[in-house]
């Protein structure tokens, strides 16, 4: 469904953020992208929807190659890739509903969006999604009135209303408490399963990733260092990705999944 071929990104400063990354994500697969800060995780997912322009290589979304598309075609393809951000990236002075409906901007014309007169089907879908994440009552609140976990739920609705085939998720839990982090990860994974979406989730919390995803890719210095199921993440592998450290505690959490969750909460 998504295929990266020899994807390279070199920033103007000369930093090579990605060194020839090859990767394939089948339909409906949720994978976690782990690695130390600066390994190129953020750059990788931004090169897919070209918020960052890749230097060379190819990105295939289904049968469409994205890296050579013109502005209009790129906008149409971006509609198929929902993005969820670190620190939520909601437009703070817009209402929750406007934030969710902004996910439809790629589908409606300028004047319609300017007048906030979205098609009734879009509005209904926005209400349905807000209800699904438990925020229906918040529809007319301003985004900056919500708590962190609530904001991220709105962010999820904004991505899903695009009706995407792929979710690009950048550190969704970076500024959330441990319990909310799990709830958000669970929500993302449930929604992906319900809708058959593939997802790439950048995440720092290895234990959390292991809990929810079926495949883990480890990035180090812009190259893929590990690609396998979460159970194959041994201390050796983590040392290869992150460097020397005592990894026993990190991995143990996975064995008894829900017991420590309550303690943390």
């Amino acid at each position, binding site marked *: 469904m998504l295929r990266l071929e020899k994807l390279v990104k070199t920033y103007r400063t000369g930093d090579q953020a990605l060194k020839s990354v090859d990767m394939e994500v089948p339909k409906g697969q949720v994978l976690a992208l782990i690695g130390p800060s600066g390994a190129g995780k953020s750059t990788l997912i931004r090169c897919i929807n070209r918020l960052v322009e890749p230097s060379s290589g190819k990105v295939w979304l289904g049968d469409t190659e994205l890296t050579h598309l013109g502005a209009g075609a790129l906008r149409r*393809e*971006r509609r198929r*890739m929902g993005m969820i951000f670190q620190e939520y*990236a*909601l437009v*703070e002075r817009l209402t929750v509903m406007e934030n969710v409906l*902004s996910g439809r901007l790629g589908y409606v014309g300028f004047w319609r969006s*300017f007048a906030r007169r979205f098609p009734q089907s879009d509005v209904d879908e926005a209400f349905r999604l807000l209800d699904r994440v438990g925020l229906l009552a918040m529809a007319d609140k301003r985004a900056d009135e919500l708590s962190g976990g609530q904001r991220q739920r709105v962010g999820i609705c904004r991505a899903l209303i695009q009706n995407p085939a792929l979710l690009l998720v950048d550190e969704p839990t970076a500024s959330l408490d441990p319990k909310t982090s799990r709830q958000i990860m669970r929500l993302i994974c449930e929604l992906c399963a319900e809708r058959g979406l593939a997802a790439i989730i950048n995440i720092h919390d290895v234990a959390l990733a292991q809990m929810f995803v079926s495949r883990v890719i480890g990035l180090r210095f812009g190259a893929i260092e590990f690609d396998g199921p979460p159970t194959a993440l041994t201390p050796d592998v983590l040392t290869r990705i992150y460097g020397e450290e005592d990894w026993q505690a990190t991995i143990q959490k996975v064995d008894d999944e829900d017991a420590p969750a309550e303690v943390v909460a």
Partner: protein
Amino acid sequence: MSAPSAELQAVLGRRWRKPPLIRRTWLRWALGLGALVYLAAAISSVEVNWSRVYEGLDRGGAFIMSFARPDFVTRGSDIWDGLMESLIMTVAASVVGIAISIPIGLGAARNIAPLPVYLVCRGIVALSRALQEIIVAILLVAIFGFGPLAGFLTLSFATIGFLSKLLAEDIEAMDRSQAEAIRATGSGWWQWINYGVQPQVMPRLIGLSMYRIDINFRESAILGLVGAGGIGATLNTAFDRYEFDTAAAILLLIIGIVMALEYLSGVIRARVQ
């Protein structure tokens, strides 16, 4: 706990001070002394003719005393006409100026405009800011003749320089991630501006616009002095005829209106956070 390292031993017990802004001692002292010498030289170069000041005190006194009995009536219709002209000039120039400033402000923000557009818009801003209002007014009075048209054009032109520059700076300081999130949805450029940028800069735009209306009214009083119409012309005439009580009435009206605008802009700015 292990014993403190040699490095730590060396600094323990040493006083700590904030590092000075200018590291080189001699440069620091030279700059300070230089500033003092310059200040002394500058003050001593101002010539004061004390006998003239003494004579002038009377006239100044008469002027200030006239504030106690401002005359709104004798030239009542002139004052009213001048005031209306000033207000019309202010509102018209502010509306036109703000309307033109918004696209130029967008173009002058480096993070959303391509380089050629940016350079053109920054050029317009620089030109407008380089030419002081009075100079523009003198030029426009020469072209369009005496009257409020010249004043209106001057204020519109000055508004563009002021508002575009500050709007562009606010856009450049906006939160990138909010705008990026809107771009990622596949929005068009105008949708991106409307959803991702406008909500972030709107409070500041409204606040600056209110402030500019305030400035434009005060400027409109000055522009009358060079013949560009408005209450300034009435004020100038009153001074020329030594009618200080009428001049006092005009000044009181200007002060009142500026304070009312100030209060109004304060209320509006508090509302739009």
